[in-house]
């Protein structure tokens, strides 16, 4: 926790550079972060709805940034908040999405089970490394600032495969005390009439810090759901067509822009 939080030191933080967050940092008196969080969520959500325009993209980026600022600012007290009673009965959020892929089940399963493959189609994942058969290290991208869309700081966590049945199901969960607390399950079933494999992914995440987090997550949930859906769509294209066809990278005749 301590080392990853460095990446996330919010610019507005009054903490000095080398001072690590301390245990007495609570959510009292952090309206700035709550504002970041809610504002960021709203922006990201609004931006997502307009995601095809460049304005939409910047808004999503900006929103995601603010959101993560809010989140990261609270991270150091994550642990403390988990013993918060208001938080205890809250289950977190879950999104489920599925797609049918015209490939045999074992092929689809094997591709996914090779966790290193996931960043090939999950837009916000930077890398996944398998540490051993069950455990893996995940790194996700975080937008750096609004104007330059350049990469990005990262957030990392470790996850563990809790259950797996070959060609059927994989269940994973982030290790306790992860910066991003999440878990997921992906199921593989035969589609009817030899139409390939149905992949159903359920991803849950637990927003930190009680009510504000819950509200933020609620607002952001449609965007998150869309993200999961798009990732699955990309997964399908990667497996079926061998690549994810895009015009990303294509030069534009418009100055300072691509495609």
């Amino acid at each position, binding site marked *: 926790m301590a080392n990853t939080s460095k990446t996330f030191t919010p610019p507005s933080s009054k903490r000095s550079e080398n001072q690590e967050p301390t245990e007495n940092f609570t959510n009292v008196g952090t309206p700035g972060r709550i504002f970041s969080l809610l504002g960021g969520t709203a922006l990201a959500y609004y931006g997502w709805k307009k995601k*095809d325009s460049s304005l939409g993209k910047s808004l999503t980026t900006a929103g995601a940034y603010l959101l993560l600022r809010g989140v990261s600012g609270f991270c150091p007290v994550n642990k403390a908040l988990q013993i918060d009673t208001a938080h205890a009965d809250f289950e977190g959020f879950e999104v489920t999405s599925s797609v049918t892929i*015209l490939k045999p089940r074992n092929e689809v399963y094997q591709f996914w089970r090779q966790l290193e493959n996931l960043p090939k189609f999950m837009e916000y994942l930077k890398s996944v490394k398998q540490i051993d058969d069950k455990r893996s290290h995940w790194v996700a991208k975080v937008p750096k600032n609004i104007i330059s869309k350049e990469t990005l700081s990262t957030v990392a966590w470790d996850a563990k495969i809790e259950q797996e049945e070959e060609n059927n199901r994989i269940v994973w969960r982030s290790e306790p005390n992860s910066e991003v607390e999440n878990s997921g399950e992906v199921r593989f079933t035969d589609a009817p009439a030899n139409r390939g494999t149905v992949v159903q992914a359920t991803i849950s995440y637990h927003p930190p810090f009680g009510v504000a987090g819950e509200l933020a997550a609620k607002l952001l949930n449609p965007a998150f759901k869309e993200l999961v859906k798009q990732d699955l769509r990309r997964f399908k*294209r990667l497996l*079926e*067509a*061998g*690549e*994810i*066809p*895009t*015009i*990303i*990278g*294509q*030069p*534009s*005749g*418009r100055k300072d*822009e691509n*495609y």
Partner: protein
Amino acid sequence: MNYRGPFRIRADRDKPVPQIEHPYDAIVRVTRSLICGSDLHLYHGMVPDTRVGMTFGHEFTGVVEEVGSGVQKLKVGDRVLVPFNIACGTCPFCKQELYGNCHESNPEATAVGGFFGYAHIAGGYDGGQAEYVRVPFADVSPTVIPEGMDIEDAVLLTDVVPTGYQAAEMGGIRKGDTVVVFGAGPVGIMAARCAWLFGAGRVIVIDHLDYRLEFVKNYAYCEAYNFKEMDDPVVFLKKQTDWFGADVCIDAVGCDASGSALQTITGKKLLLQAGSATALHWAVNSVKKGGIVSVIGVYGPPFNMVPMGSIMNKGITLRTNQASVKRLLPKLIDHVMSGRLNPKGIITHRLPLEEISDAYHIFSAKRDNCIKPLLIPPRANLA
């Protein structure tokens, strides 16, 4: 070329050369490139999400300059014709040979597949009115130009010939049928010519540009009439067919049609519908009961007003699609090599790529008896 907004197109020497982005890409140096009626819909600002900065052009031939690591069939130096549809070759639609409806090549759409040089609703891929093009899925559609084929014939095989042919094919023409083609542009001309290959007994072309009517009469051995000289084209065609109606009608005009004030005002001025559907109305109303209307002219989102009541009550079959170029190529290459089809006969203008903005103007304004303009890039004739 660089699209700057409706009616504004310019040559752009500063646009960077495209790079290989995926293992199945190839980079092609363009040798010939055509402007199409479909480009005019873009030029006239009729197609949603046409973005400034784009390069149009979906009818081109070229030389392979570079291939991605996954490309197996094409080699550097191959002279290829590149069908306008971008197709992955493996999705269920490509497997049914519906290469114009590839499920993968157009990330955002559920209708049309990816095209070169069209609006972002067709994927937004930069096209061939340029010196270099990135060609995705290079092993699927691009076809090596057969030994002995004229490059001007080859470039017309990327769209116009298969499109005209498919228009006639979708008409389900039977021996002796009367076929009416609306539109004497390159597509209509080719459709009229191909109608004979399916056994048509009579071919009638309708347009309002006398020079095109004159041209099509000679090129496609058909009758040709000017709708401006008729009170009502539908009544005219009924009379021509003993009040039966034509067996098959082909709409080779699409959403930019003239001829009806109501359609033009609602479609092109007020934008209450996606362009004007005049030719489609005429086609539906002049085909016989139980006849087939083949729509090859392009219509776009969101919708057009269509006389559904006539379609229903006359029992009309509507058939339509983007041409599936790759499917038709083997047959059409044979028709061209054997001399049954002479595509390059429709090219009327040959201009350097630098003069692209003039070329668009001439073609759009139907100036100078223009039927089909060909663009030749400066590097076209490098060894």
